[in-house]
C-alpha cells in the first residue's frame, strides 16, 4: 500500500476503529453470503463485519447487490448460501418481524391511512400506553415535527416525510438501523443538511447505522467505513479517506471521485519508489511505493485531478511532468476543472481551487500549460 507506514491518509473523524481491534466482536456478521435471483447472482459470497455504534455504508452503482445485502439482514430475502448473524446469533429462518433491526425504506413506505404520530407509534405495539405516548413525543422532537403530529403523510413535504420515516424506524429502538438510499429523494441542499443531521443523530443515539447508497459523496460524508461493491462482491472496505486516497483497484479509484489513470510499465524500483515508462510522459512517472514490483509489470497510476498542479510556465525537467494545452474547462465556483490535452493526444483532468477572486493571468482555451504531480500523489494499481 502507498506509503501508509510513513503517512496518514486523509481526515479521520475520531479514534473510533473497532475493526482494527482483534478482540472486538462484530455486531453483524455476513458469512460467505450468496443470493441468487433466477440465473442472476445478486450477492456473491460476501463476508462482512459491522461493529456496534458504527456508521457503515454500502456503496455501489445500481444493481451491484447492495440493497439485496441489506434486505438479507432485514429478513426480506433469505440467503442461498452462507449466513447472517447479529450479536453472535444466527438469523437464519427468523422472519423480519422478529429481527431487532429496523429499516428506513427508499420510498419511505409511510402508512397513508395513519397520521404522523400513528406512523411513529406503529412499531411500539405491546408497550404500555403512557410509554408509547412518551416515545412518540420524544421522536417528534428528535426530527423536529412537533406541530405536525396529526397530519397525514400526503399533507407533508418530501423532507418532512423523510423525517417521519426516520423517526418511525428509530422509535422501537432497534439494535441497528438500516437506511436504504435515505436521501435519494431530497434536493441537493436538503440532502447535504440531512447528511450531517444523520451523523449527529447516530452519535447521539449511539446506534449502529447501515446505509445503502449509490452516491459516493453521501457515503464519504456519513460513514465511518465504506464497502465499495461491484457485481455482487465487495471490492474494498475502508474509511472514506482510505478508499479515496488509497483505492485498491481501478474500479474503486474511478467510482469514488474523479481520477486520471495513466498506464505504464515498471522500469525499476528501489523499495521506496517505483519508476514507470509510459507513452503519456516522456520523462517517465515516479510514485511512492514500498512494495517491490517486477520490471516490466503492467500497472496504472491513479492521480486525482486536485493533486495535479497546473503550471503556466514550464517547470524544471523531471518525472511526472507533462506539457499540453487547455482543451476545455468547467467553472464550478469554488473549483475549476481543466481538461488538458497532453502531448500524445489524451486528455488529463486537473482541478484548481479558485482561492482568489481576481487572477493575474486568466487561463483560457488553447493556452499552453504544463502539468506535474508529486510522487506521493499517485496510487499504483495493478488491477
Amino acid at each position, binding site marked *: 500500500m502507498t506509503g501508509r507506514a510513513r503517512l496518514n491518509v486523509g481526515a479521520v473523524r475520531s479514534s473510533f476503529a473497532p475493526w482494527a481491534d482483534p478482540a472486538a466482536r462484530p455486531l453483524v456478521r455476513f458469512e460467505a453470503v450468496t443470493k441468487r435471483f433466477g440465473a442472476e447472482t445478486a450477492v456473491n459470497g460476501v463476508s462482512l463485519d459491522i461493529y456496534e455504534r458504527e456508521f457503515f455504508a454500502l456503496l455501489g452503482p445500481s444493481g451491484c447487490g447492495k440493497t439485496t445485502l441489506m434486505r438479507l439482514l432485514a429478513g426480506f430475502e433469505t440467503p442461498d448460501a452462507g449466513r447472517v448473524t447479529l450479536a453472535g446469533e444466527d438469523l437464519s429462518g427468523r422472519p423480519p*418481524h422478529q429481527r431487532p433491526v429496523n429499516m428506513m425504506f427508499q420510498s419511505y*413506505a409511510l402508512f397513508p391511512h395513519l397520521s404522523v404520530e400513528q406512523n411513529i407509534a406503529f412499531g411500539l405495539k405491546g408497550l404500555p400506553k403512557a410509554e408509547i405516548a412518551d416515545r412518540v413525543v420524544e421522536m417528534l422532537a428528535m426530527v423536529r415535527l412537533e406541530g405536525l403530529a396529526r397530519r397525514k403523510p400526503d399533507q407533508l413535504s418530501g423532507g418532512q416525510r423523510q423525517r417521519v420515516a426516520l423517526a418511525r424506524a428509530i422509535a422501537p429502538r432497534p439494535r441497528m438501523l438500516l437506511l436504504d438510499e435515505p436521501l435519494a429523494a431530497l434536493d441537493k441542499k436538503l440532502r447535504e443538511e440531512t447528511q450531517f443531521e444523520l451523523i449527529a443523530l447516530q452519535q447521539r443515539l449511539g446506534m449502529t447505522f447501515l446505509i445503502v447508497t449509490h452516491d459516493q459523496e453521501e457515503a464519504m460524508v456519513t460513514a465511518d467505513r465504506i464497502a465499495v461493491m461491484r457485481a455482487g462482491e465487495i471490492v474494498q472496505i475502508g474509511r472514506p479517506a482510505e478508499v479515496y486516497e488509497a483505492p485498491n483497484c481501478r474500479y474503486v479509484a474511478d467510482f469514488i471521485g474523479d481520477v486520471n489513470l495513466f498506464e505504464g510499465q515498471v522500469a525499476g524500483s528501489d523499495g521506496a519508489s517505483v519508476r514507470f515508462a509510459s507513452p503519456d510522459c516522456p520523462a517517465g512517472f515516479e510514485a511512492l511505493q514500498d512494495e517491490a514490483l517486477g520490471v516490466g509489470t503492467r500497472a496504472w497510476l491513479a492521480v486525482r485531478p486536485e493533486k495535479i498542479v497546473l503550471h503556466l510556465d514550464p517547470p524544471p525537467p523531471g518525472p511526472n511532468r507533462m506539457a499540453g494545452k487547455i482543451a476545455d474547462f468547467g467553472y464550478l465556483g469554488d473549483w475549476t476543472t481543466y481538461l488538458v490535452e497532453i502531448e500524445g493526444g489524451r486528455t488529463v483532468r486537473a482541478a484548481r481551487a479558485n482561492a482568489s477572486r481576481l487572477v493575474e493571468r486568466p487561463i483560457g482555451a488553447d493556452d499552453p500549460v504544463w502539468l506535474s504531480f508529486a510522487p506521493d500523489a499517485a496510487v499504483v494499481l495493478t488491477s
Partner: protein
Amino acid sequence: MSARPPRRGLAALAPFLWLAVFFAFPFLLVAKLSLSDTALAMPPYAPRLDWSKGLQGLGDFARGLDLQTYGRLVTDRLYVAAYLSSLKFAGIATAILLMIGYPIAYGMSRCPPRLRQALLMAVILPFWTSFLIRIYAWIAILKPGGLLNQALGLLGLPPLALMDTDVAVYIGLVYAYLPFMVLPLYAVLERQDESLLEAAADLGCTPRQAFWRVTFPLSLPGVAAGALLCLIPMIGEFVIPDLLGGSGTLMLGKTIWTEFFANRDWPAASAVAIVLLATLIVPIAIYQRQQMKLLEADR
C-alpha cells in the same frame, strides 16, 4: 387566453342532454303518474293532460293530482313489508358477497401478474352470456329434480328443497353480483404498495397483524365501493326474486311489477318506484363521494 373555443360549451352540454332525455323526462313522467289516480281506461289512470283545452287543461290536470297514492304506501302494510324485506335481502346478500368476494379479490391481487390477468378474465367472463340465461341455469340446478339434487342423490344424501325459497334468492343474488364486489376490491388491493407490508413486518407485525393493520384499512374504499355497487341495484332487483324466489318472496322490484301488470295500478307502481329511487339517492351519493375520493387518491 381570451378566445375560448366555442365548441367546448357544446361538449359540456352533452351529458346534461343525455340526462334530460333518459333520466329527467322519464322521471317526471313517472312522478306525474304517481300523483294520478287509477281509472278504468286505457292507459289506466286519470287525469290526463289534455292539450286541446290549452292552459285551462293544464289547470284541470294540476288540480287532479294528489298525494293519495303515497298515503296508501304508508298505510298499507304490504308496501312497508316489501320495502323492509328488500332491504333485508340486499343487506344480507351484500354481507355474504363481502365475505366471499374479499378473499377472492385478495387472493387474485397476491397472484403472479400473468395469472392475475387470467383470473380477472374468469371473473368478467360470465358477463358475456345473457343475465337471464344464467339465472334460468340456476333453476335447472336448484329445482327438485335438478342437477344439485341429482348430485346429492348419487352421494346418498336427502334432496334439498331450495327452488322457490329465500335461500334460492340469496344464491342468485350472490352469484349475479359477485363480479361487482370482486372488481372494486381487486382494484384497491392490487395497487397497494408492497413495501408497506414490508415496513409493517419490519416494525414487528406478523403477516396476520399486517393484514389487519395495513391491508384491510387501506382497502376500505374498495369495500365501500363494492358494497354500494351491489346493495343499490339489489334493493330494486326483480328478475332474481321473480325466477328463483317463491310466491312469498317480497321485494320491491316484484311489487312494482305486480302493481303495474297484474293489478293495473299504474299510480301505485310509480309511487313505489319513486320512493325506491328517493331512498337510494343517499347510498348513491355516498358511492359517488367514495369514487371521487379514490380518483383524487390516484393523483
